């Protein structure tokens, strides 16, 4: 037996000080495990977080595009467009995201590759980032369609009629009147969607996209320090949410500029 045995190991043989020993041993280990340099896994987690934020940003932007188009289709489109959009939003909101992600991922890559081979090109591997953004964006689009539709309906009708009376083209009307005027009504719902998007990126880990949840799972699996790593990942997600809330508050105040404050309105 070596003369200088680590205190944690020696203490663990006696039952009384077991918890103390474990706590001190894990406290010493946690810092090493989470350090950003290679023996620690902190860097891996941060890269994963970056991927998560990238996917969430891309998915939200794509969702906003689909949502604006969808809301316009639902409000001003013909009967067929309206019914098809109703089917889209209903189905996407009724099926679990996990199932949708699997279905869209397989179906999407399959369709693209079949189209490419039909046109005489080579099959391609679709990057995880692009696929993740496309899949989550499609899901987000259904929710933002409803949010933006409600926000457009909340705009006083006279503003849109006035813009039409000035002879604005539909594109100009959208850019100058509809989008800015609906923003204060849409921001709370869209902010909620952004928070959902950041959390939904974790689901992509199940399909095997490299982001924070999967990075955490790898780190935890290698080091066996499951609690430490999942706790650390939870803290990272929480910080992202809290930071987003801060930004959202600013954006909401900016979008409501010139309007009476909510407190006075009551």
């Amino acid at each position: 037996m070596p003369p200088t045995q680590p205190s944690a190991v020696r203490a663990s043989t006696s039952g009384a000080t077991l918890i103390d020993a474990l706590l001190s041993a894990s406290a010493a280990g946690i810092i090493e495990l989470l350090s950003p340099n290679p023996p620690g896994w902190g860097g891996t987690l941060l890269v994963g977080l970056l991927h998560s934020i990238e996917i969430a940003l891309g998915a939200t932007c794509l969702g906003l595009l689909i949502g604006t188009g969808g809301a316009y289709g639902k409000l001003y489109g013909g009967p067929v467009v309206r019914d098809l959009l109703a089917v889209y939003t209903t189905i996407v909101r009724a099926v679990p995201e996990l199932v949708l992600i699997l279905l869209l991922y397989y179906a999407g890559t399959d369709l693209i590759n079949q189209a490419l081979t039909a046109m005489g090109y080579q099959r391609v591997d679709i990057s995880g980032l692009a696929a993740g953004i496309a899949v989550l964006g499609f899901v987000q689009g259904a929710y933002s369609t409803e949010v933006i539709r409600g926000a457009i309906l909340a705009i006083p009708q006279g503003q849109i009629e006035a813009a039409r009376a000035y002879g604005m083209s539909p594109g100009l009307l959208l850019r100058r009147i509809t989008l800015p005027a609906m923003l204060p009504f849409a921001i709370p719902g869209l902010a909620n969607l952004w928070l959902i998007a950041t959390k939904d990126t974790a689901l992509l880990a199940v399909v095997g996209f490299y982001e924070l949840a999967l990075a955490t799972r790898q780190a935890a699996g290698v080091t066996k320090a499951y609690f430490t790593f999942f706790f650390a990942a939870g803290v990272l997600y929480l910080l992202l949410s809290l930071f987003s809330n801060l930004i959202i508050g600013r954006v909401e105040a900016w979008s409501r500029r010139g309007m009476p404050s909510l407190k006075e309105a009551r």
Partner: protein
Amino acid sequence: MANEAAIINAVARTSLWLQPHRIVLILIALGLVLSAAFFMRWDWLPQYYEMGLIGIWRSLWILAVTCVLGFLLAVPLGLAQATGSFWFAAPAKVFCTVIRGTPLLIQLWLLYYGLGSLFPQYPWIRESWMWPYLRQAWPYGVLALTLSFAGYEGEVMRGAFAGVPKGQLEAARAFGMSRWKTFRRIWLPQAIYRALPTLTGETVLQLKSTPLVATISVIDIFAVSSKVRQDTYLTYEPLLLLALIYMTITGILVFAFSRIEARIPNKIG
């Protein structure tokens, strides 16, 4: 007479709904379903039929248990935030923020892998009566989903409790009701009426969260479909059927809640 009028009304509504373009869309949808039924492989169905039913039952069971337990937990959480002193309100607020700010998947894995890997180190846990349960996966899944539902619904209940007009509570006090009776007869029922529309949405969201328990080896309907996909190398058929099953359950849930909502008095406050 009233009956006839109702029938005429219903016919009018149906003809309004069933416009020509809708008939075409329905025919196209039928064509898609029929071609899926005939051109895709469904020969695995008899073999996995029983397993699927057990999976559906387990998903529904998890949904029901976690919603009921989560709601029971959400009531004190909402109450503490709506009225409690700082020492009650702050922890409830922190709990709701943490649950709503982190993905359910991470919460689930933290409980199952994290706590689950810590427990065996302590002999007194291994010798306790809880150990046979703690070695299985489903208690962790139920716990994580319950806490998640409580976190989201606690925030809703806070608004619902705060939204009950003060006059109602003052009237109850004037009738000489004790605080507990006021809460039980006036405050809680009215808060639940207010929260009911959002409760529908939360329950559907909870249903859509249940497949996550498949990632910690609970065999629900999602896990059954994954097993079919692994066994038969089919990609789409099990997933499409799974989506159909979830849509059916969602439809039933929304219908049931709308029936319940129709029963409550709608003039509140």
